[in-house]
């Protein structure tokens, strides 16, 4: 299952990179969503997965029942999900605001100065 998750994560990563390379701001944000989900999944996978017990300690016990899922990547990913949401909400509102101000979501049209490179690039 870990191999499958790795391939899934990698594919989401590829999709994220592709979307980030677009010149539409909305697509860039979708790219951010994809990449942050991909990274969370990969981080979780790297901590090794198990379908057995969650990392909980039953009443009357002092240690979890073996074998249990690795709690550390879960804690890390949990933090990452929340932080990722913070970033995403800010990015979304920023996109909204810049569209309201500038009237475009095309990253190339947002610049104030004339483009330093010629427009013919691809």
């Amino acid at each position, binding site marked *: *299952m*870990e*191999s*499958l998750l790795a*391939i899934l*994560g*990698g*594919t989401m*990563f*590829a*999709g*994220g*990179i*592709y979307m980030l*390379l677009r*010149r539409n701001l*909305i697509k860039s*944000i*979708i790219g951010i*969503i*994809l990449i942050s989900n991909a990274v969370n999944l*990969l981080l*979780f996978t*790297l*901590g*090794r997965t198990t379908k057995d017990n*969650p*990392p909980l*300690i039953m009443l009357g*016990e002092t240690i979890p029942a073996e074998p*249990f*899922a690795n*709690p*550390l990547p*879960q*804690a890390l990913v*949990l*933090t990452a*999900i*929340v*932080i*990722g949401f*913070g970033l*995403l*909400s*800010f990015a*979304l*509102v920023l*996109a*909204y*605001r810049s569209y*309201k*101000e*500038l*009237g475009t979501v095309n*990253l190339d049209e947002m610049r104030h*100065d004339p483009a*330093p*490179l010629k427009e013919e690039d*691809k």
Partner: protein
Amino acid sequence: MLIAVAAIFIAGLLAPYLHMALKKNTVYLLALVPLSVFIYFSTFIPEIAAGETVRQSTPWVSLFDVNLSFYLDGLSLLFGLIVTGIGTFIILYGGGYLEKDRQLPRFYSAILIFMGSMVGLVIADNLLSLFVFWELTSFSSYILIGYYHEKEESRKSALQALLVTGLGGLAMLAGLILMGFVSGTFEISEMLSMGDIFRESPMYTAILILVLAGAFTKSAQFPFHFWLPGAMAAPTPVSAYLHSATMVKAGVFLLMRLNPALGSTDLWFGLLTGFGAFTLIMSAWLALRFTDLKQILAYTTVMALSTLTMLIGIGTEYAMKAAAVFVLGHSLYKGALFMVAGAVDHEAGTRDVRKLGGLRKLMPITAGAAVIAALSMAGIPPLFGFIGKELVYEAALSIPDVAVILIIIAVLANVAVVAASCIVVLRPFFGKEVETPKHAHEAPWLMWIGPVSLAGLSLIFGLLPFLIDSAIIKHTASAIAGYEIDFYLALWHGINLPLILSVVTVLLGVGVYFIWDKFQDSKGMQGYGTLFAIFPKKTYEALVDGLLKLAAWQTGILQNGYLRYYLLTITLVMLVAVGGTFFLKADMNWFPDFSGILFYEYAIVGVMFVALLFAVSIRSRLTIVISLGILGFSLALIYILHGAADLAMTQILVETLTVILVALVLIHLPNLSKEVEVSNAGKIRDAIIAVSAGALVTMLVLATLHLPFDDFISRYYASVSYTEAYGRNIVNVILVDFRALDTMGEVVVVAVAGMAVYALIKMKGIFNTKEEGSR
């Protein structure tokens, strides 16, 4: 000694305020500072004369073995006396020379800071603190050379001097650190007895070349000689100090200082003697190409520095003696001559010898000092310069294998120096009076006291060399050699080969002087000047220009203002660097393992692939929101299947919020189909890069999964979660207890993001550019 160095620095910092209070009298008070340090150093003469050394140490950055430790032996004492002694006269001279200049306080400040650095440099015992002082001299000389900062030439010359010596200094730092590694200490006094350790070290060649890079750039050896004549853009008091007696000697000083540790090898001999001898002959004759007094003196200074470099390379007892005597002799006469040149410029309004003449009647005192100093430079008895030159000849003859070549070079170079001596004194002061831009009269006493005293010392030490030979010079030579050398100096050695050569030198030199008018501007000399004076400078300028162009070019490429190209660059670098390493490590195992996967797991992953495909390819905003939602919730399902209940809960909550937020925002944004998209070629290129990046990430994760896993930390948390933190949910305990500070940071981040979101929504439009299209 720390106090002595600090006192000069403090005086430098206070100088502008003193000038405000004392006006013209500042100069006397400030001159007292180097004078008192000079007297302080003099009190060590008896101890040094008795063959002892003095060492004082104050810890500075003890973690890196950087100590403010100072070491006085014959070498550092001689340099300390030269620096503070001439420094005293320079302050007086500068006070006179720049009297009407409103930037005079800045001159005082910079020159005193320079002086403090120079004193620190010559008496430093710690290589790293020596380097700090070394860089301080480069820095303060940058300010001093660029003193006339409104002139472009000054700024250029200052930058040139800083870049050349600064780059050399950087190389030297690497060399010094290597020396520290090899010997296990940074104290020079300890290194001096470790010569064999250095010479046998495999690092020796690297150390030598790096240290020489510093010394050669500082002391203007070929091919770095061009910066010194360029630095003549500085006011003359600066040139007289930095570019004759002090800063440019720092490189030579370092070679002398490290001679016992690094010297006596074939490489040392070859590099120092080779570069020294070549620069010697090259620069001496180059001096005759110029008619500006300061340029002539600058090239003879390069000549003197290369003489010293060559002597240190030769390394015989004669050479050590010669080096010790020549350092002092040169400082005395060259300091005096520079000050004379400045006085002439100051009083007559030009430094071009073709426009000067007959000043001896108008400036008799300056003329007298000039004559004596020039005689010393030409090496005429009974002046101290004569003793120095005789010893140089003896040293050149002291290595039988190359004696013939060295002596020919030395004699030919000195012929040019004799001619140059004639030029700098006969042209301005003798002959018939000519009309000068300013009507000349004697310089104020502040400006002649220096040259007169220094020239007087040249005469006194020449006539009475026993005054200094066993007291200092002997110990200087011994310190350079690293072993005891016993000798005394005398004016008269009987009729021997050096004396005969001296006579020949003087005769030829005077001969050259008489044909100089034609010779100076002849075709041959023009070509010679272009080759050695202009070409190196042009090369330097081309290099600097090229560097700037390269910087502009690569900035244009990398910082082009397009977000996607930045990301493209980052991704490509990751692909090349990480991917390259990955494939070079051929033993990486990244084969996937699909055993034991259940049907519904395939189903979930399959759904996610489809959702992903929709998310990246569909233009309908609603479809995208739905696809993202499916992806996020499926991810939560994967988490929960793998025993990560908290994760799944968080993912569901956050995903719900995300979907709502994305939907809310997308309603206000234009439909994706409205956007003009890039060409298919661009899409394919991006797709290839994105897929490669994804594949690389996948393979990295697969390879990592094949490696053994160490869950020590996880097990530790699991075992103490209940016993120490009294929590049954280990993930929660980690978050709020073991790693509570991280979580605290996370809360702060989310709070800041929330405030920013609120501000962005509520903020009134600062600029509404929809119509105007400008800020």
